[in-house]
Structures are given as C-alpha cells and as structure tokens.
C-alpha cells in the first residue's frame, strides 16, 4: 500500500480528547443572548396573530418582520423562509425567536407565546400527496418491447422510513454583530459558503457584509448541510434586530422533530426477465420531501440515477418525484437518495432470483456491469468494476456462500439465522456537471516566512478527518514534516470557496486541487518569503458532459464500490434480531490514512444497520413526530454489533490524489438490502419489502405464518 495510507495521529485528536475543543455551545454566555425558537404546533395553518407576553427589559421577540432583506433561505429554490410567512407548513416550522440573557426565562416566555391559527387541511400521508416539487424522468432502450418479449414480469413496491442523522452534538449557530457593521456567524456546520450566501440575501448585504466560520462540529452526516443556513439566518436576523450576539442551540427533541432527515420513499419496480437476464426495468421513485423543497432536487437526482443499481440493463425507464407533504423538510443524509433506491433494486434482484430458483448472488453476477459498459444515464464506467473480486473477498471473510446454503434449510427452532449480501456503488462528487458548472472549486496554499504552510479551503472537519488528510497530501508533495502544514476550520473571510463538505467530494476533488497546488508551490518555493498559490477545478478530460434535462452523460467521473454481507439471528419469541456479523468490502481507491478510512467505513456501516433495524421514526396523521428522543429513536450502542469487519479493495483513481476516490457515504448505502435479505432468509424466504424492519415487524411476519 502507498505510504500515504499509513495512519498518523489526527491533528484534532489532542484538543478533542482533552475536552479543550470549543464547540458552539462552549463559548461563554456573558453578553450573549440565548435564542429559543417558537415552533408551529400545527402541520398547516394560517398564522393570524402571535400574542407575545410582556417582555422584561433585555428580552426580545423577532420574526419575519425583522428580516432586513429577503425572507428566503436560498438552498436550491427560494421556498424556505427564515421565519414563517402567512402560513406554517409543518409542525416545528419556526414562527419567531425569543431572545434574552437567561435561558430558563427565555424558554418560559417562549412557551407563554400564544399563536392564533386558522387551521388548514394538511397533507401528511405520502400516498395522498400530489404536489411535486421536482419531477424527473429518463430512460433508454425499448422498455415496452422488452416487457412484451419477457419470460417473466415482476412488479414490486418497496418502502423506507425516515432516518435521523443523530449527530451527538445538536444543531447550534451563533451570530455576532461586528464593529464595522459586518455580521459574524459561526457554529456547527458543513458548508460555510452556503450559509454565507444565504445570509447576504436575508440581511440584504453584499458578500463583505457577512463572515461565516465553522466551529468544531460534533458530527453532521449531511444533517448540517442545509439546516445551518436556516438557523444561521435566524440568529443573524435576531442579532441584527437586537444589536447583540445571539446563540441558538437546539435541544435534542427539537432537533429530532424539526430538522431535516433522510427522505422516506416508496419505490415501485417492474422488471422484465428473459433467461437469467433482467432485460428491462420500469421504475417509479417517490420521495417525501416534506414541506419545503430544500435539497430534495439533488437528493432525488442521485436516487434515480442509482435506481437500476450495479446492473447492465438494456432497457430502462425511470421516473422520480419529490412530493410535498406538511411534514418536516427532508434533506441530506449520508448516501443522499441512493440508499433508498439501492435497497429497492437489491431486494428486487433477491426476489427475482428466488422466484427463478437461482442463487441470488449468481443471478446478480450474471447481470453485473463491467468496465466500459454504459451507465444508467448513458455515461461510461471508465474504470475497473471490481465487484467480482470483492464478492470473493467477502465470501472468504465470512463464508457467505456456505452459510447461505446452510441457512436455507428449513428452520423451526426459537432462533433462526440468515445471511444476505448486497452490491452497490457511490458516485463520488456532485451529480452531473455540478463541480464544473456550479461549484467551481478554488483552493489555496499560503506559505509563511518560516516555511510553514497553511491550507485555505472551505471544507470543514466534521469528524471525517480532513484536517489531517489534507495536510498529509500537501506535506507529502512538499516533502515537509506533517507538523509544518496546517488546516484550520474555514472562515469565509479568509478562505476561497472550494465548495461544500458534502457528496464524499472533499478528499477526491479538493484534495487533488491541493496536491496540484503543492506541486506548484514546490516549484516556486523561495526560502524566507511569504507565498501563495491557487488552484481551480478542472473537469477530467474523459468525463462525458452531463445534461440534466435529459439525464444523459457521466453523472459521476468514477465510482466507489461496496459489497456488504450481514449475518443475523432472529429470536422468534421476542422478534429481536442479533447481528452476528457485518462484513463489508469497500473500494474507495487509495486510502489517504488507513485509520481514518476504516473509521468512516465502520461508522457508516453501523449507521446502515441502525437504519435497517431499530431506527424507526414516524409521524402521526396530524404530522407530529413522536419518536423525538434517544429513548424513542434508538441508535446502535457499543454492545449491538461487536462483529463489524471492514476490508478495503484498492482500485486507484488516476484523477484523485494518489488514487483516492470519495469514501464517506459509501458504507451505508448497501446495508438495508443485505440486512433485509438476511432477515428474509431467517424468516423462511418470505418477500419482505421495507426498512426499518423492527422486532414488531418480525412478530408480525411470524404471526402471518401461523394465521
């Protein structure tokens, strides 16, 4: 393995483990107003009046009337307000904010606010929703003809639920008016420039009127991609209106109820099969966007592009819609739309194989894509597709094939076992031409007189290790010891826009810019002088242009690949399932630090197991989420999956630094299908079609068997 992969002590290790790192809640509260949001209690209503109790000196109420600029938090479209307009559209929407020095009193005053509503009929059930924020379709080949000529035709529907990111640090932002009139906004976030741009609109100022800094961030996983723009605008409006620093840190229940999560989905798949080949897929994908569009467009794009999975299907028709409901807006979460469709297509393959009497893995292998094949959007798999080798590696690691046969025998005892496998990819970087046309990343290196080098980029450390991996790349090119190169949390007053910390892009895209910058700096290096070099994104030459209108071309330059196997044992008396082993093989290219990559893979794999099993979140008919605490919304603990084994299979990507590809999201994507396939086998092969699949679902499935 490349020496760059050797693990080092992470740069942020010391301050974090010793409790010295300052997260947004940790700044002293002297002179800072505590902000608390007044949330809507109805899913859809006209807000007639807010009766605010008499406020003591130094306490303030702010709402839409205090927004100096435009009451729109720009994410993709302009529909999300900072504070509600005439109507509220979901339970939890912010109507206003109470601010004051004493937190308890602020909370009491907030609770004493009386909102007069005129109730309107909400749409809370996805199946009843009709308004589409986004609707796309694409395809190739002759689907109707393939169905007419098929040996067999299948028609199945798959469902997935919400998933809450459950970062352990809740959302929090702080705004401080500066002396020169500039607004300084900082907090727990992934994308400082998203917040920066949203603020200029809301405050009605130019780019120099605001400055955004990422504080140490206690986990994000996509959950701090869009919401910090909203919360950041809310505290900024409050700070602007009161003239004082304002901080708002959500409490856990508020965070779980009111901030974005993974889109629930309903995917309907029709398949035409001839021999052991799938000849056509006709796919309809529906995502529950919630009340505002936020990031749903891009989540849906990624979801539908991945909908045919890792298979070479000659005829494909895909339709995807993100529908509006009067529920919490859904946004980004690790995998970004792909976990839903990969779950559906992988379960479909499982079910078709069973119906044909074929081994589910052999059937998948017969339909796999290969290097040089066309992608779902008529792009090309330019690089090796290592899935066959990875399948063998997994088989060796956990005796998948042997166990699969063993557990297929009739089981009738209290404890029953199953093993399942799934195959998936994650397209690294922004979908389509986003990197070239929208992001246009810029990164800089600044060399000081003493020869230390600072990395200037807008990507934020969120636990994924960029404060360590970026400097490793630069230090390696410059031939400097690692402690001579440093990378701080981004501040928009100091760093160029190298794009957001999303889409598993930071290392692959910005890491490569930094590598090129380092090569130039080395060539231009003059001892004792202060120097700066800047690099701009260039699209790889081989990449076929992508048209978003037609969904045609290379949606991604390259792909990271995964094979995931889950082995579990079900207790048929209690319905509880125990994961006996989770085995996964990942090709993320060259790891720019073995420990960092392994940590990402293990963490993502466990989140995927949670998503498949215990992480159940629902709303009632009124649109209220009740599972809003860690006692109702369970996430895995240290005890739950002791046997978690990740392996790496390295296919170097020539356009990534030292061969690295995007990594962070991949490990979650394939888990739900592997988990449910294992569950299906343990329960005797019945067709299961939804996650999470909880203990109650197990009992329900068994009751059907007896009934």
């Amino acid at each position, binding site marked *: 393995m490349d020496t760059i992969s050797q693990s080092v002590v992470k740069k942020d*290790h*010391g301050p*974090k483990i010793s409790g*010295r790192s300052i997260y947004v809640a940790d700044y002293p509260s002297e002179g800072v107003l505590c902000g608390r949001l007044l949330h809507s209690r109805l899913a859809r209503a006209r807000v007639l009046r807010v009766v605010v109790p008499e406020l003591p000196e130094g306490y303030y109420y702010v709402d839409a009337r205090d927004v100096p600029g435009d009451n729109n938090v720009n994410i993709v479209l302009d529909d999300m307000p900072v504070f509600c307009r005439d109507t509220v559209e979901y339970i939890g929407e912010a109507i206003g904010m109470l601010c004051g020095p004493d937190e308890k009193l602020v909370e009491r005053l907030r609770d004493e606010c009386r909102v007069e509503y005129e109730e309107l009929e909400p749409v809370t059930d996805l199946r009843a929703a009709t308004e589409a924020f986004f609707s796309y379709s694409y395809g190739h080949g002759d689907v109707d003809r393939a169905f007419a000529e098929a040996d067999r035709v299948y028609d199945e529907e798959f469902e997935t639920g919400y998933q809450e990111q459950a970062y352990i640090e809740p959302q929090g932002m702080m705004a401080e008016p500066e002396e020169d009139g500039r607004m300084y906004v900082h907090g727990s976030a992934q994308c400082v420039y998203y917040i920066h741009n949203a603020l200029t609109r809301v405050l009605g100022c130019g780019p120099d009127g605001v400055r955004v800094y990422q504080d140490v961030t206690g*986990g994000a996983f996509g959950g701090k991609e869009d919401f910090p723009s909203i919360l950041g605008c809310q505290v900024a409006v409050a700070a602007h209106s009161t003239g004082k620093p304002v901080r708002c840190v959500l*409490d*856990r229940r508020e965070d779980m109820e009111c901030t974005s999560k993974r889109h629930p989905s309903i995917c309907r798949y029709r398949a035409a099969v001839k021999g052991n080949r799938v000849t056509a897929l006709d796919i309809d994908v529906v995502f529950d966007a919630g009340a505002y569009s936020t990031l749903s467009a891009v989540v849906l794009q990624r979801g539908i592009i991945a909908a045919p999975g890792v298979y070479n299907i000659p005829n494909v028709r895909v339709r995807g819609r993100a529908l509006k409901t009067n529920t919490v807006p859904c946004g980004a979460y690790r995998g970004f739309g792909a976990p839903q469709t990969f779950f559906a297509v992988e379960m479909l393959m499982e079910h078709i194989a069973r119906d044909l009497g074929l081994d589910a893995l052999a059937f998948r292998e017969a339909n796999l894509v290969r290097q040089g094949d066309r992608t779902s959007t008529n792009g090309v798999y330019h690089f090796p597709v290592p899935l066959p080798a990875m399948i063998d590696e997994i088989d060796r690691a956990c005796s998948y094939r042997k166990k699969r046969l063993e557990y297929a025998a009739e089981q009738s005892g209290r404890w029953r076992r199953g093993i399942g496998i799934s195959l998936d990819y994650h397209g690294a970087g922004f979908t389509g031409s986003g990197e070239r046309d929208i992001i246009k990343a810029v990164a800089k290196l600044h060399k000081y007189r003493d020869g230390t080098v600072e990395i200037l980029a807008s990507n934020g450390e969120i636990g994924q290790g960029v404060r360590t991996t970026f400097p490793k790349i630069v230090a390696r090119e410059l031939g400097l010891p690692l402690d001579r190169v440093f990378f701080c949390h981004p501040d928009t007053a100091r760093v160029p826009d190298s794009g957001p910390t999303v889409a598993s892009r930071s290392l692959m895209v910005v890491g490569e810019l930094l590598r090129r910058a380092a090569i130039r700096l080395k060539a231009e290096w003059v001892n004792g002088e202060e120097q700066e070099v800047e690099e701009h994104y260039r699209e790889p030459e081989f990449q076929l242009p992508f048209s978003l209108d037609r969904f045609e071309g290379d949606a991604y330059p390259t792909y990271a690949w995964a094979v995931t196997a889950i082995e579990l044992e079900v207790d048929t008396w209690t319905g509880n399932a125990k994961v006996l082993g989770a085995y996964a093989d990942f090709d993320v290219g060259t790891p720019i630090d073995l420990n960092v990559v392994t940590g990402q893979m293990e963490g993502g794999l*466990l989140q995927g197991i949670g998503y498949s099993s215990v992480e159940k979140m629902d709303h009632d008919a009124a649109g209220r989420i009740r599972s809003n605490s860690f006692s109702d919304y369970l996430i895995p*603990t240290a*005890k739950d999956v002791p046997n978690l084994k990740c392996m790496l299979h390295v296919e170097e990507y020539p356009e990534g630094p030292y061969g690295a590809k995007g990594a962070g999201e991949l490990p979650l994507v394939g888990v739900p299908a592997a988990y449910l396939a294992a569950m299906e086998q343990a329960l005797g092969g019945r067709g299961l079609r939804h996650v999470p699949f909880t203990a109650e679902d197990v009992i329900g499935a068994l009751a059907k068997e007896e009934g």
Partner: protein
Amino acid sequence: MDRLQEIRFVLNGKEASYTGSAADRLLDVLREQFRCTGVKCGCREGECGACAVLIDGLLRNSCCVAMGAVEGTSIVTIEGYRETARFAVLDRAFAQLSAVQCGFCTPGMILAAEALLSAHPHPTEEEIREGLSGNLCRCTGYNAIVNAVKSAAEEGEGLW
C-alpha cells in the same frame, strides 16, 4: 424563602461550592459556573452519555444529577482527568487507533473507560462494550474505541 444553602463538593481535586438552587443540574453548573465545557450536552435526558462525569469514582450522567445530590462528593470531569497518568495512557491508545472523530462523545467516553478500567483492569471485549454502552457515538461504529480501551488496559498494566 430560606436562605440558599451552600453546596460543598470537590471538583477535580479542589474545594468548590455552589450557592444556587439545589435543583439545578450539575451539567449546567459545571459548564456555566466552572467553565468545564469538556462536559458536553447531547440530550439532557440521561440518554447519550456526552455529559458523563465521575462522582466518587462512579460514572454518572451529569444532566440527571441535581446539585443537591453532590454535597460532600468528589467530582472529576475531563478537565481534571486529563492531568492524570491514566489519561495519558488512554490518550495514546485513542491517538494510535484514531478513535476520535467528531470528538463530541469523547470526553464522556474517556471517563466511561476510566470507570470501566477501575472496576475491571483486564476487561474482556464484552466487558468493554458493556461498560461503554451508556455512551453513544454516532461516528465511529465503536470498534476503534473498544480496541483503544483494550490496548490502554494492556499498556497501562498496573495503573488501574
């Protein structure tokens, strides 16, 4: 109303006192009055372990402890613990295995490891997982943390 009584305790080896309400949460008092911001708040409901401290050597979620209950006790937070030789061993082990990602669970996790190792200086993997199961970590998948505690137990032979 009665004059508020002073609540006395030892914090990180030093005498400390609190004159606010006995119903106030230890978590808030540690963070606000004593500026022990290494004690994190992840839920305020006793579910996540980010606010864990040691009270007379036992692991407690400080969000669920009223100030009235700490009278006469000795409290250790990460701010005190980081000065110890045992911490240095855990620190090295966590560093070697990159067991810290976002870091928000970490101070609580370290104190959970201390509580575990002082009860079981040679813990099995199962005991480690049990001992850390009250501390949620969303980033790591726990393997690195469990392995770090295992390695600290070996490296720190005789310390616990």
